[in-house]
């Protein structure tokens, strides 16, 4: 029986527009899951600190730890993960440091708040120090993912300074979305309304950024134009339209605008949160799926 993966590789190598598969298919899906979870973790931590949500703090730590597991699952040699502290110019290395700082700082910060007997007070100097360490890690986690993609010179669709900004916006949104879900289960009231309003504003910003990003990419070069085509009418179209756009942008924004005119139930706000999270995942998935490598020969040449 022929190896279909090998046959597909040969077909890809002979294609003018070779699709990127390593970071989205097979075990590459773990990388998308890892990015999604770390995005939720970082954003949820920030807004849980602001809105004083203990459940959010715990969930954020759990999300980032699970993100670490997902990343390990993706690696070809996970047992060597500790080597990633090494390099100076690698955004993956910086992200690794960010996750270490966040996990350590956040865990130490949350322990006294969770009632665990520790030698330091929940509001003392050491606790404040751990909070700042966690915030530094959180900021690094928010920033590094988009830059990992932007550093990929081989995939012009990703090689743009817009992508890190988009990923930061989505991380902030993921945090707000998770808080909406938590508040819908536990903490109704003014805080939920404030979170919903900020979430609407960031959702609209994300929608504008996505449109702007695709507009720029469509006009940049033939490869990025091909990637946009993959997103809008190719391999990634289903995920993009159903996940990123419909569930992730249109539905939450529509509900959010409705919420400006009349009060929304906590259940509806929770649903907005879930849909936003679904949209976050599919935004990452579809951007990765639409990646096309730089063509090595003139694109108007017929494949023989």
């Amino acid at each position, binding site marked *: 029986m022929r*190896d279909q993966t090998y046959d597909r590789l040969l077909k890809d*190598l*002979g294609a003018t527009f070779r699709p990127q598969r390593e970071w989205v298919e097979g075990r590459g899906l773990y990388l998308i899951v890892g990015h999604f979870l770390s995005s939720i973790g970082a954003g949820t931590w920030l807004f849980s600190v602001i809105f004083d949500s203990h459940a959010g703090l715990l969930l954020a730590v759990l999300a980032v730890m699970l993100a670490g597991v997902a990343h390990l699952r993706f690696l070809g*040699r996970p047992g060597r993960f500790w080597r990633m502290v090494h390099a100076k110019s690698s955004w*993956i290395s910086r992200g690794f440091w960010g996750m270490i700082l966040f996990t350590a700082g956040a865990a130490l910060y949350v322990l006294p708040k969770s009632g665990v007997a520790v030698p330091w007070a929940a509001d003392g100097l050491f606790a404040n120090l751990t909070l700042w360490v966690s915030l530094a890690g959180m900021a690094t986690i928010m920033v590094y993912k988009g830059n990992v993609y932007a550093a990929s010179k081989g995939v012009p669709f990703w090689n743009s300074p817009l992508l890190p900004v988009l990923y930061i916006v989505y991380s902030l949104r993921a945090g707000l979305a998770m808080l909406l879900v938590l508040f819908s289960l536990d903490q109704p009231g003014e805080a939920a309304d404030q979170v919903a309003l900020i979430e609407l504003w960031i959702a609209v910003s994300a929608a504008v950024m996505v449109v702007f990003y695709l507009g720029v990419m469509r006009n940049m070069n033939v490869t990025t134009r091909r990637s946009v085509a993959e997103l809008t009418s190719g391999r990634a179209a289903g995920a993009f339209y159903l996940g990123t756009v419909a569930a992730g942008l249109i539905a939450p924004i529509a509900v959010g605008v409705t919420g400006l005119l009349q009060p929304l139930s906590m259940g509806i706000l929770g649903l907005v949160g879930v849909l936003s999270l679904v949209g976050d995942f599919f935004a990452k998935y579809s951007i990765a799926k639409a990646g096309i490598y730089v063509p090595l020969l003139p694109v108007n*040449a*017929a494949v023989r």
Partner: protein
Amino acid sequence: MRYGMAIDLKRCVGCYGCQLSCKAEKGSPPGVFFARVIKREMGTFPNTQVIFLPLLCFHCAAAPCVEVCPTGASQYREGGVVAIDYDACVGCRACMQACPYGARYFNRDNRAYFADQCLTPYEMVRYSEQHQGVVMKCDFCMDRVNAGKDPACVANCPAKARTFGDLEDPASEVSRLIRERGGAPLEPELGTQPSVYYLPI
């Protein structure tokens, strides 16, 4: 010293000799091509032309793969050769995304060429030298170069389309060919400064 190569597109006949000799020299598993050739037909009948483009790692002086590597496994070695320390690679494949030339391959598993059989005795010997779960690529056959020989693809090209040598020596054959024939690297606008130049048809 900076090792480099000139590939004469006028001489290349698309025989795949470089690809096969590299496979034989390195014993690379299926799905890993340190050297490969792509073919394209240009123009419309009756004014058509077939282009053969031999590809390998270009050992760039400003290699994006080295910049993005989180463990330092991708590194510069003597002569400007970009090498991979297979014991340090974690298999994150960031270098594959950074390389604009498709020169890197992830060795997921040392699979057999004959999918419905176990490894052949040859494969068992050669694959014992390989590393699974890491990214692999051409290293300019440094073992051969250090022994005073040309890389396998250069030595075995029947059309003598490839020339290897020191790009920083203006008297070297490779420097002379690039200078006299107007050799140019692939996608120079990316700023990677490849060490492999193509001599035009």
